[in-house]
């Protein structure tokens, strides 16, 4: 178990360094960071001054080392637009993004869980297929389109819910459900695959051969075995979800870290972009580590090996 966690820890460290490097490279992709940040109107004198001020005149390895060293301490420089430490800006907006991503994740996972159990326990082939078909169709629609249509139907036509912004708990509903629908579809299909794999395994037959009821076989035998492999996927997915709220935040004008980063991209405020990318990636790494730890606790085969 220790070697398992050790390997995962090494991977986490490599990931953090990888992301820091990518963040470093992004700014230098088209040659001059000064040109990128100051825009086409910058004079050569401006650029030289800028390069000196931000250390862009030193050698690349030197710059990388400084950047990684500062980055590890949470220092990505000040936002060009706001003149505040960019990490602070990101951390200020992060809770709002976590609220959105977290509620969508929970909504999706719980609904998928309930749907799967209902289908397994009471449903037949027809209900199962219906659920899978709906899932496939929901997954085929881009979430931004789902969001725009949700605004049209629930905010404009039915006037039930607020369309934009984050005023009070009701404004969370539309973006969270839109994002969550995709999650439901994903997990319903994953659960279905996982249960299908279990169904034909020998231990299920053994349980029936003892005279066990279908309900108990599904709940006590198949469910733990079917849910375990989903844990890893759920971890990866939650990470991508937090990084992926940017689109839905834009659709609903939700003031989150995604919006912040997206706007920083448009405004060429690169310290904020770098801080945002690294902070969210670090969160991602943390989530995956927690999942690995959970896995190690829940699966006796990992725990004891």
């Amino acid at each position, binding site marked *: 178990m220790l070697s398992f966690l050790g390997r995962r820890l090494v991977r986490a460290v490599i990931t953090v360094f990888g992301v820091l490097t990518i963040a470093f490279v992004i700014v230098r992709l088209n040659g001059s960071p000064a040109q990128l940040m100051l825009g086409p109107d910058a004079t050569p004198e401006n650029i030289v001054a800028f390069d000196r001020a931000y250390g862009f005149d030193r050698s690349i390895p030197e710059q990388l080392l400084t950047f990684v060293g500062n980055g590890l301490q949470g220092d990505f420089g000040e936002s060009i637009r706001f003149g505040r430490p960019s990490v602070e800006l990101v951390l200020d907006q992060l809770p709002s993004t976590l609220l959105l991503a977290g509620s969508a994740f929970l909504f999706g996972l719980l609904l998928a869980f309930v749907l799967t159990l209902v289908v397994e326990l009471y449903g037949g082939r027809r209900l199962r297929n219906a659920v899978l078909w709906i899932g496939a169709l929901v997954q085929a629609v881009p979430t931004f389109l789902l969001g725009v249509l949700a605004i049209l139907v629930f905010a404009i036509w039915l006037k039930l819910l607020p369309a934009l912004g984050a005023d009070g708990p009701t404004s969370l509903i539309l973006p969270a459900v839109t994002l969550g629908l995709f999650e439901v579809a994903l997990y319903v299909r994953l659960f279905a695959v996982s249960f299908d794999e279990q169904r034909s395994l020998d*231990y299920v*037959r*053994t*349980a*029936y*051969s003892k005279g*066990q009821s279908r309900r108990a076989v599904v709940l006590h*035998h198949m469910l733990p075995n079917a849910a*375990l492999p989903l844990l890893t996927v759920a971890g990866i997915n939650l990470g991508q979800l937090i990084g992926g709220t940017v689109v839905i935040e834009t659709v609903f004008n939700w003031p989150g870290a995604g919006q912040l980063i997206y706007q920083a991209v448009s405004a060429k405020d690169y310290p904020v972009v770098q801080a945002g990318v690294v902070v969210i990636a670090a969160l991602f790494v943390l989530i995956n580590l927690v999942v690995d730890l959970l896995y190690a606790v829940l699966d006796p085969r990992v725990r004891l090996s």
Partner: protein
Amino acid sequence: MHEAPPPGRPVLSVRDLVVVFDGPHGPLRAVDGVSFDVWPNEVLGIVGESGSGKSLTMLAVMGLLPPGARVESGSIEFRGRDMVALPWEQRRQVLGKEIAMIFQDPMTSMNPVMKIGRQLAEAIRLHARELSRAQVQARAAELLALVRIPDAQRRLTAYPHELSGGMRQRVMIAMAVAHDPALLIADEPTTALDVTIQAQVLRVLRRIRSQVGASMTLITHDLGLVAESADRVVVMYGGRVMETGTVEQVFAAPAHPYTAGLLASSLRVDGPLDEAYAIPGTPPQVDARPAGCVFSPRCPVGGHRDLCRADKPGLHTDEAGHGVACHYSGETSAWVELSRRPSDAAVGT
């Protein structure tokens, strides 16, 4: 006990059982009209190659056919109950209590994320709801001791993968005999184990069976196992019963060419290697079985004759209980004599 069927009623009576599953071009008969009885306190060996339908037959008895397979016709009577028509809710009162099954691979047959103790307790509690938690625990430990697993208390908190293959199969046996079943179905119980452990596990299984007084069907491809463990034997091939009788009858004087071929190929391990006999060809796939006798394409006795190719022979049983499904069973002994002569030993090899 090696004699004609004992008096009384059979524990299990299978008649004309047909199990089909859906193939790409319509249903395929994996088990094609199988009949046999299991009498009280006897061990019935069911012998056949893989694909002969032996496991499907017993899974049909349990009502645990794999998806896609179903009983199409025939009857399965267990202690006076019609097992084919028995709804699942009633069937499960029988499973684990009166009929219990031991599967081939003890690793995959146990829930990998559930402790041994819980899996054993489940088997106990299902048909003894009145037992307290402590009583269930005590019974579990008692069962583990019965199958000679040392340090029972510690094993109860172990997971399947922490036990050796032999230990796991002992636990499976313990689960199966939790309620002193009338019929034990053992499906290749030692095939997945190391050769060195097979004998031990088999000893445990035999001892427990006679202690409990259960009848047992021992599904295997190993003729030696049948010879040493079974009272009677059913030889299956291509979904049909080829020959049935007491172990003495079948082994000493095989009446079906298939049985004779099996014996010739397996019992001569002590002879020179170049004399070893092998039945020519391979068993037909379920969807490519010949119209007449299923064995005819490989049969050294009657395979070339029109009758064998056109007509499926029925199972004819004599007064002593020795049954054979062959149009020319009278000629088998002559073939056996012939094939034993070294000069003719090269047949088919």
